[in-house]
């Protein structure tokens, strides 16, 4: 794992990780988070194994209780882990954006489409039901045909609280 950047911004701390998150990941190399908001960019992470998950979870437990975690640009395998592993994210965390795989039945191409919070999805809250834009039109880069979502929707969007 590489720390692409760890920057203290005006209102939040921005962290971007890359590569494999595994037993060699050194989370203790990340500077202490002094802001109340931590935004983690997962877009360049290529893999996470169980040791990596354990190290990530243990590291999030070391954050001060007032630090809220927002994660963005999550690859599918990160969303899969969030879905099966209660505790992958600390309480009150938010997923700001994540990739949803699409498939072109016409030419066999695949594409990862970035779903953004407030645009393509919204998690369930006390007064609002969860929302996912299942009808979004995603066109194939190769043949311009409309692609189909390539996930088991009940499983993949489960973390948003979809019914």
């Amino acid at each position, binding site marked *: 794992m590489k720390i692409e950047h760890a920057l203290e911004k005006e209102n939040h701390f921005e962290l971007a990780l890359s590569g494999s998150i*595994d*037993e*060699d990941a050194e989370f203790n190399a990340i500077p202490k988070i002094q802001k109340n908001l931590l935004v983690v960019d997962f877009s360049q992470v*290529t*893999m996470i*194994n*169980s*040791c990596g*998950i*354990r190290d990530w*979870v*243990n590291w999030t437990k070391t954050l001060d209780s007032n630090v809220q975690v927002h994660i963005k640009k999550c690859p599918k*395998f990160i969303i*899969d882990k969030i879905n*099966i*592993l*209660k*505790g992958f994210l600390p309480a009150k965390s938010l997923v700001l954006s994540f990739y949803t795989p699409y498939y072109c039945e016409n030419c066999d191409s695949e594409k990862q489409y970035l779903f953004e919070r407030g645009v393509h999805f919204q998690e369930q809250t006390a007064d609002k039901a969860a929302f996912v834009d299942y009808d979004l039109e995603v066109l194939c880069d190769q043949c311009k045909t409309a692609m189909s979502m390539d996930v088991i929707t009940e499983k993949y969007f489960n973390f948003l609280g979809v019914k």
Partner: protein
Amino acid sequence: MKVKLWGVRGSLPAPLLPEQQYQKSLTNLKQFHEALSTDPNISPEKFLNSLPSYMSKGFGGHTACIQVQTSEQNIIVDGGSGIRKLGEVLMCGPCGLGRGEVHILMTHFHWDHLIGLPFFVPLFIPGNKIHIYSVQDNAEESVRTLFKKPNFPVPYEALGAEFIYHTLEPRKTVHFNDLKVTPYQLDHPDPCWGYKFEHNNKTFSYCVDTEGTRVSRKELGEDLALYQNVDVMVFDAQYTFLEATEKVNWGHSSAPIGLDIAMREEIKKVYFVHHDPAASDEKIMIAEKQTRDYYKTRLKALKQQEAEFSEVDWEFAIEGTEFEL
């Protein structure tokens, strides 16, 4: 080298309760009933043998004890409740005549690795010699404690066999005839030492009890050898992965962690043991399924990345499992 797992339960013996026994029988009978409708000639034995062994037999409730055998040497690791049955078998040989020499390697002295000893019959037979090996230098004290009054009716001094204690040096190989044994430290309180057995170019590592907190080659340092050039490994998988992420510093691991090590170090076969005494057979089966999903995901990712890797054969072991290498 032949290995037999006499006890695969962790922390406390956990026999199948009468109600669980009833439910298991009921499930199997219902399935047998169904099987008969497609094959009216299927025998009960054939049907039971077609089921996964944890369904026909269960995982078993006895705690840590294994036996490692070569043509020249017989070694026991740990004296959990699984050792009682092994004692009965040994009594059919020289131990029954007071001419037995028993070698027991101790990983550590938590009760689940010790409580079978007062019921290990060769200890009561005058003439038998019981060698106890450990890296920790307080083995005798722990064994004596087991036989203290009023906790056990027979005092240590009245045991017929002669006890000989041997302190092992960390990471230093000991030769037992044709079998080489080396202790390496695990990640467990009080502390605990795993053993690497080598015989005829085959290697077996016993990695119980451990949380597997050190996984990277750098963190493992001089204990890395426990996991390198290994054909078969027995690994602590007391918890599901989710439980293990919550039970930090409890000293036990989960199967996905063992698989990460095995995949990296190209260990050919892994048996997961030290099942949680609070886990029913069904719950252990769920942990196995989750591990299967994890393993499949990892393989798929490695294939996609076109990375080089070797597949690992693995299973959640049931009591009585035997293998040869």
